[in-house]
């Protein structure tokens, strides 16, 4: 049995391992913490200086780095919207926007 059950909804008590055991290493990747987000970071690409502060400060390690060493996209599957990236950005190019604006 894969452990994806743990991060999906609706499995019955007969379909899950006893004692809540997780039998797969690294299974936290199934846990999309992006669900928790109420603010979404939006980057102004023109202002960004690629200093990488946001990358190293992100507690979820979800800001990617591109092959050329420049800052990549923010992985919204895991970004909890904590806003630390926006706080530490020296040029203030990240804006935290209400999640509701994107789910209208």
């Amino acid at each position: 049995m894969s452990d994806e059950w743990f991060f999906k909804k609706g499995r019955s008590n007969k379909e899950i391992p006893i004692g809540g055991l997780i039998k797969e290493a690294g299974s936290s990747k199934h846990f999309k913490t992006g669900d928790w987000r109420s603010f979404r970071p939006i980057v102004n690409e023109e202002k960004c200086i690629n200093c990488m502060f946001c990358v190293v400060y992100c507690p979820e390690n979800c800001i990617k780095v591109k092959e050329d060493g420049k800052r990549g996209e923010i992985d919204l599957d895991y970004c909890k919207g904590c806003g630390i990236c926006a706080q530490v950005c020296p040029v203030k190019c990240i804006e935290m926007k209400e999640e509701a604006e994107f789910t209208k």
Partner: protein
Amino acid sequence: MSNVKALTGGEAVAEAMRQINPDVVAAYPITPQTIIMQKFADFHADGLVDSELVRVESEHSAMSCCVGASAGGARTITATASAGLALMWEILGVASGLRLPIVMAVANRALSAPINIHCDHSDAMGARDSGWIMLFSEGGQEAYENMMLAVRLAERKDVLLPVMVNLDGFITSHGVENITVYDDDKIKGFVGEISANKPLLDIKNPVTYGPLQLQDYYFETRSQQIPAMENAKKAYLEIGKELSSITGKEYGFVEKYQTEDAKAIIVAMNSTAGTTKAVVDKLREKGKKVGLLKIRMFRPFPYSEVMEALQNTKAVAVLDRALSFGANAPLFGEIKNSLYELKKRPALFSCVYGLGGKNIYESDVEEVFKKLSKKELGLINYIGLRE
């Protein structure tokens, strides 16, 4: 060859532990710890067991250590009493929730306050909803045999629940009896080797124990303990039958002593069942139709077996060595539940006795039978209490 030895109940449990030779024993080494661990530590020091004996700084740590060891795949045993069990409380639920087959002997003793060290079932009754299978022992011999049964029962794949083996503090734990100690090889053959379920030390198949489960899965996971408890009843009888081939004894959920034609029955657990047997014998000689129903397994509770045993009698007194303040005494409440579906129910009385080790004498039990036969008891009675 079996061997009859003069042992205290605590030493008898330690003998069982010597024969079981568990992988890990974690225990708090001072009071309220009993002779059980003192004697087992002797066996350990003398090189008679291979167990890792971990002396921890509290019972909370003792049970935590057992949880870790058992999750690691080790056959794990501990022992405690009284306030020690109370301090373990949080981790008792972890052990059952993680489905770890830990075995623990509990010498039943009173809880504070006032400070008291003597026999009382308040400790075990306080832990009765923690998801542990609970066996009770009339004397040292039963405690000794229950330990072996417990190991097999806990580890059964369709059960995987911790088991608490209860024996009366001081009365049994420190009282010397003639104990038949069965042949080491036979007991070792009976308990066999643990085949652990998803052990943490199986590094080729890594698992995570104890993840967070919130509204989504907590209820589902906890509810898995319900069928496990049901399975425990069937498993107990099967394993008991196997143990019978060594001991020649029967292992039922209850012991029916002269209940068949009894007009008045006392329900009791642990050593008071022994006292009651003596009184039953005495009254039977005088032609009185009285009997005893001894509860051996308290969790899972054998409701239908209790109902079957009590359905033809006229009056029942339930002896509780614990209180549930503001509610029915614990055993009384269960017996009352058991009788609900009977069309014709016997008269039922609650008798609370012996808290903090206050003695219960044969004369007290005789008095209960006397009043019970005439239905002269109140609904709730306190035996031996000055009031």
